[in-house]
Structure formats: structure tokens, C-alpha cells
């Protein structure tokens, strides 16, 4: 599958989706002008990936900030991951960022995927 490799900007996250190397990561800030449009290629990619996924898929979220529109799209991403066998989520948060920790906990309650919480 093609690799998605987006550089982060001040209002969009860095995204790396690389099946060959088993790297699936979203990091940085997410407050795009058009959230649905920005994340559509990611959701499309995951849909193709789900037809022949790796044995294990560890999806890394290492977000510094995301707005509420992005939170809906993050839930959409998690919902797509839910259908892929062997998926887990590594949710990173800055050690003093309780809100980001809580956001991860809430997502983990909304989907049936094992979450691992890590600080950076």
C-alpha cells in the first residue's frame, strides 16, 4: 500500500501511515479549517488497509492539541480500527496534561480497542 506521510503544520497534525514498516502515527496539533476534508484520505487509507492488515496494528496518537471537530474524526478513525483484528492504541500525553489523558480515557470507553497510556 502507498505510504501516507504528511508533515505537520501549525493547524494540522503530522501523519505517518506505513504498512510495510508497521508505523501508524498521528501527532502534533489538529485544528484544520475543514476537518472532515483533511481526515478523509486517512479514513480511505484505513478502509483499504483493513482488507489486508498486518497481524498487529499499533496506532499511535501523540497529540499536543486537537479541537472538537477533530475529536469527532478521531472517533471515526478509532471506529475504523475497531474492525481490524490485532489493533491496539498507544495514547501519548504530556505528563502534566490531564485533559489529554482524560480525552484518551474517554475515547477508550467509546470503542472496543485496547489502549495503552504513555507519557512523554
Amino acid at each position, binding site marked *: 500500500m502507498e505510504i501516507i506521510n504528511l508533515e505537520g503544520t501549525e493547524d494540522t497534525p503530522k501523519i505517518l501511515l506505513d504498512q510495510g514498516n508497521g508505523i501508524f502515527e498521528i501527532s502534533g496539533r489538529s*485544528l484544520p479549517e475543514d476537518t*472532515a476534508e483533511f481526515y478523509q484520505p486517512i479514513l480511505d487509507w484505513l478502509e483499504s488497509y483493513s482488507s489486508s492488515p498486518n497481524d498487529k496494528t499499533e496506532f499511535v496518537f501523540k497529540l499536543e492539541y486537537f479541537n*472538537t*471537530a477533530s475529536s*469527532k474524526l478521531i472517533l471515526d478513525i478509532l471506529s475504523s480500527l475497531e474492525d481490524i483484528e490485532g489493533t491496539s492504541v498507544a495514547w501519548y500525553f504530556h505528563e502534566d*496534561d490531564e485533559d489529554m489523558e482524560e480525552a484518551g480515557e474517554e475515547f477508550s470507553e467509546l470503542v472496543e480497542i485496547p489502549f495503552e497510556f504513555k507519557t512523554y
Partner: protein
Amino acid sequence: MKYIYDLHKTMLANNLILIYEGEFTQEITKSVLAMAERNMDSIGEESSIKRKVFNVMVECLQNIVKHSDEISDPSLGKYTAIFMIGKKDEEYIITTGNPIKNDNIDSVKDRLDKINSLDKDGLKTLYKEIIKGTEISEKGGAGLGFVDMARKSGNALEYTFEPMSDDFSFFSLKSTVSRQA
């Protein structure tokens, strides 16, 4: 030219550190955020407080960007809104003001009243209900902005509606973020 001095005094009296009046776009949003961040960095504000203020600012600014096309009233001129940040010893105050159709007042008021009636756990439950049920609207919102502002600020959202014309009112909204962590 006295208005310059008057405005200066008003800003000082209200502890305002930033005012933007005009059209709101994503580019303007980014600039305003960058200025406010720099201001907080320059005084060495705690990162947890900075994040909360940033969070509330984004939702305020993007609310205005997303809903600005609703206004079309020649008598009111070009649609503009106002955004302000105040900084006191004990808190940051983030305020916005924008015209709103009178027809929309009740629904906005109902949502704000509901949010203000809920405690921390109630807000969390409401947030999860909305995020599960919502689709991104044509305007690009998830319907979560006010709830998130209340949660991150930890305070009620104060508001007023001032009549402007038969069809429009001026909607002012105020969030307070405590500087005591």
C-alpha cells in the same frame, strides 16, 4: 483622536491584553492564537493553564469562522465579530461577540443553559453522547464547542443577547479560565 486614549484606558481598566475586531477566517484564527500564545509564553505562564486558554480560544474563534456566513443584513453592514482576551492575577477571560439571527437565540440559549446546569461528570456524559451521535455539519462543526469550553475552563459560560434589529441580536459569550492550577 481622544478615542485612542479612551480605548487604551478601557483596555487597561478591563485587563484586556488582546482585541481583534473584523472578519474571522482560519488564517486570522492562527494569527490571533499565535499572538496570545506568545503573550502567555512571555510571562512564563504554566503550560497547563496555557493549554486550557488555547483550547477555549480555538473553539471560540472557530465558532465565529464557521457561523459567520449566517449573517446577511444590508442594514448591519458587513458581518464582523469581536474577540478579546483579558488577563487578571487570578484568571484569563476569553470573550467573543457576534451578530446572531433572532430565530437562533432560543436554541443557543437552551444549549448554554443546559451546559451551565451540569457538573463535571454531567458535562462528560453530555460530551460522550454528542460525539457518539453527531456527524460533522456542513459548516464543519461537531456540536461540541460549547461543552468543551465549559469542560476545559471549568466555569459556567456567561452570555448576553443585545437587540440590534428586528432580525438580529449581538451575542456576547464569556469563558473564564482560572490561573490557579
